[in-house]
C-alpha cells in the first residue's frame, strides 16, 4: 500500500479535539504496517499543534489557515495532490459531514464509524464498522484508493507519544471554496447554556432513563457526574419525555459511546440503548427491577431505587476520596 495515510485534524476555537490524536495514533500504526507516511491536514495555523502531532506519529503537517471557510474544497485539493491511500477523519458533527462530501467529490468509498482497520500485505484494508446500530459488525472493503474512513472519539486508543519525533510543517494556501460550499454561511454559533462534556468524548458517563421519573432527578445524576468528571447521558425514553436534550441521548437514534466507565441509572436496557453503550469498558447498572435487561450487560449491578442508591454512591465516593483531588 503506497501513498500516505492522511489524517484530518479537527481544530475548534484554536484547540485541537482529542480525537485528532487518536486518529494520528491509528494512522501511525497503519502506516508502520504498510510502510508509508502519516500526513496531517490542519485547516488552520498549525504551529501550536505541531509538537504533539509529531509526538503521536505525524511525519508532515499541512497547515491551511483560512481553510475552515471551505473545508471540503481544502481537503479535496490536498487529497488530489497527495493521493493518499486512506483519509482518516473524526466522526464528529463536522468530520462526518466533511467525510461524506469529500468521498462524493473524490469518488472514493466511505467507511463511516470504523472500529478497527487492518491492512494486509496485498494492499487490501479491512474496515470493521457497526451496522444496524451495532447489532452487527460488518467488514467493509473499498475497491480502490483513496478510502475515506471516519472513527468516533475514544474508539482508537492513543499511541505512546515520542517527544523526540518532530513533524515538518508545510504551508498551503487555502483554495477558494467550491460554489456550493461558498454559499453556505455561518450565521452564528450558539454555545450551550451549561458548559457540558459531550457524551461521545467523555471518559465517564452517568446516564439516566425512564426510572428517574422526571427531569428534576437528573440533578442527582449531575452531582454524581461532577464527582466522576463525567458527562450526563440519557436513554431515548428520557429524551422523548423531554427531560433531557437529544444531544445527550445514548443509543440507536442518539450517540454510540465508548467510555471507560458507564453508569446506567433507572435504564431498563432496551436493545436500542444497549447497542449504543455496550463498547464501554466497564458498565454499572442501578435499577429497581431485577429482571431489567441492563443487568445482562453490566459488570456491576445494584438492584435498588435510584433515589436511594445514587446519593449513597455519592457519599461513598466522597468518603473514598474520589473527585477530591
Amino acid at each position, binding site marked *: 500500500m503506497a501513498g500516505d495515510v492522511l489524517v484530518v485534524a479537527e481544530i475548534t*476555537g484554536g484547540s485541537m479535539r482529542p480525537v485528532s490524536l487518536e486518529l494520528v495514533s491509528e494512522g501511525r500504526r497503519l502506516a508502520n504496517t504498510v510502510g508509508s507516511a502519516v500526513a496531517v491536514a490542519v485547516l488552520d495555523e498549525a504551529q501550536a499543534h505541531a509538537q504533539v502531532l509529531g509526538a503521536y506519529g505525524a511525519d508532515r503537517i499541512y497547515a491551511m489557515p483560512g481553510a475552515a471557510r471551505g473545508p471540503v474544497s481544502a481537503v479535496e485539493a490536498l487529497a488530489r495532490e497527495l493521493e493518499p491511500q486512506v483519509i482518516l477523519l473524526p466522526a*464528529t458533527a463536522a468530520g462526518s459531514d466533511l467525510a461524506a462530501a469529500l468521498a462524493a467529490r473524490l469518488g472514493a468509498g466511505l467507511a463511516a464509524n470504523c472500529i478497527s482497520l487492518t491492512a494486509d500485505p496485498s494492499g487490501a484494508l479491512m474496515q470493521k464498522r457497526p451496522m444496524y446500530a451495532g447489532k*452487527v459488525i*460488518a467488514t467493509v472493503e473499498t*475497491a480502490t484508493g483513496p478510502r475515506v474512513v471516519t472513527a468516533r472519539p475514544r474508539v482508537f486508543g492513543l499511541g505512546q507519544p515520542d517527544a523526540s519525533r518532530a513533524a515538518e510543517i508545510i504551508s498551503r494556501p487555502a483554495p477558494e471554496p467550491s460554489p456550493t460550499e461558498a454559499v*453556505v454561511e455561518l*450565521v452564528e454559533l450558539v454555545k450551550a447554556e451549561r458548559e457540558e462534556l459531550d457524551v461521545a468524548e467523555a471518559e465517564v458517563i452517568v446516564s439516566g432513563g425512564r426510572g428517574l421519573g422526571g427531569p428534576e432527578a437528573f440533578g442527582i445524576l449531575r452531582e454524581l457526574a461532577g464527582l466522576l468528571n463525567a458527562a450526563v447521558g440519557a436513554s431515548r425514553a428520557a429524551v422523548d419525555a423531554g427531560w433531557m436534550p437529544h444531544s445527550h441521548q445514548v443509543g440507536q437514534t442518539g450517540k454510540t459511546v465508548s467510555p471507560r*466507565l458507564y453508569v446506567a441509572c433507572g435504564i431498563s436496557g432496551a436493545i436500542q440503548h444497549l447497542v449504543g453503550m455496550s463498547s464501554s469498558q466497564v458498565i454499572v447498572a442501578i435499577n429497581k427491577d431485577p429482571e431489567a435487561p441492563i443487568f445482562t450487560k453490566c459488570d*456491576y449491578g445494584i438492584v435498588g431505587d435510584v433515589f436511594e442508591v445514587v446519593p449513597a454512591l455519592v457519599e461513598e465516593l466522597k468518603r473514598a476520596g474520589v473527585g477530591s483531588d
Partner: protein
Amino acid sequence: MDIIVCIKQVPDTAAEIVPNADGTAIQTEGIPWVMNPYDEYALEEALRAKERLGGGVTVICLGPQNAVGTLRTAVAMGADNVLHLVDPAFEGSDAHAAARVLAAAVKGLKYDLIWCGKMAVDDACGYVGTALAELLGVPHIAAVVKVETAEGKVTAHRETESGTAVLRCPLPAVLTAEKGLNEPRYPKAIDIMKAKRKEIQAKGAGDLGLAPDSLGAAGSLTRVTKFERPPERGGGTVIEAPVAEAVQRLVAGLREQAKVL
C-alpha cells in the same frame, strides 16, 4: 414550495438483527420493516412546510418490491406523489451507487428543497444526502434540528460538539434531518385506507438512463465482505446487599478490580 423527500425502508429499530450462517448477509425473515426514523423527521418537516406555504411533496424511495409498504405510509402521512425506484439492477448498491440512482431520479423534477434523513439506521453511512447534493451541484446542510425558509433562503440549525451552528444557504438545497427536528405524525386510519388505493409510480434503471455498470455491486465503491455478531458481553455481578454495603462493594470493585476510578 416544491419539496422532494428521499426515504428508505429499514428494519424496525427494536428488531433483533443476526448474520446468516456464512456471514454473507443478515437474516431477513420475520423482520418488521419501517420507514427509516430520520426519514420520518424529513417527511414530517416537508409536510409542515407544504401546509404552511403550499406546493407539493414528492417522496422517492429506492428499494426492493416490498418497500411499497413504506411508500404507502408516506402517502397516508400526506405525500402528494410517490416514486418507487425498483429494479433488480439496483440490488447490491452501496451508498455511492444509491446516491447516483437518486440523483438521476431527481434530475428533471422541479424542486426548491430536498430532504433526506441524516442517515439510515441499517447501514449507518450518513452519506447519501450529502452525496446527492454534490451530484446535483447544490448546497447542503446536514443533521438539521430546526429550519426556516424565507426569501429564497433556508436557515438551519445543527448540533455540533461546540454548540448549535446556525447556517444559511440559498435554495435549492439539500437538508438532512436529525432527531429533535419534529414529532412525526401518525397517519389516520382513513388515510391509511385511502393510501392503499394510491397508484405508485415505479421506475427502473432504463427509465433513468443509467448504465448497468454504474449500478448495484458493479457501480459500488465499497463491499461488505463479512457480517458478524459483535462480541458478547456477559452479565457481571449483581451486588445483593443493603444499599450502604452495596455501594461500598461497588466502589471497591471499580477501584481495585476494574481499576476505573
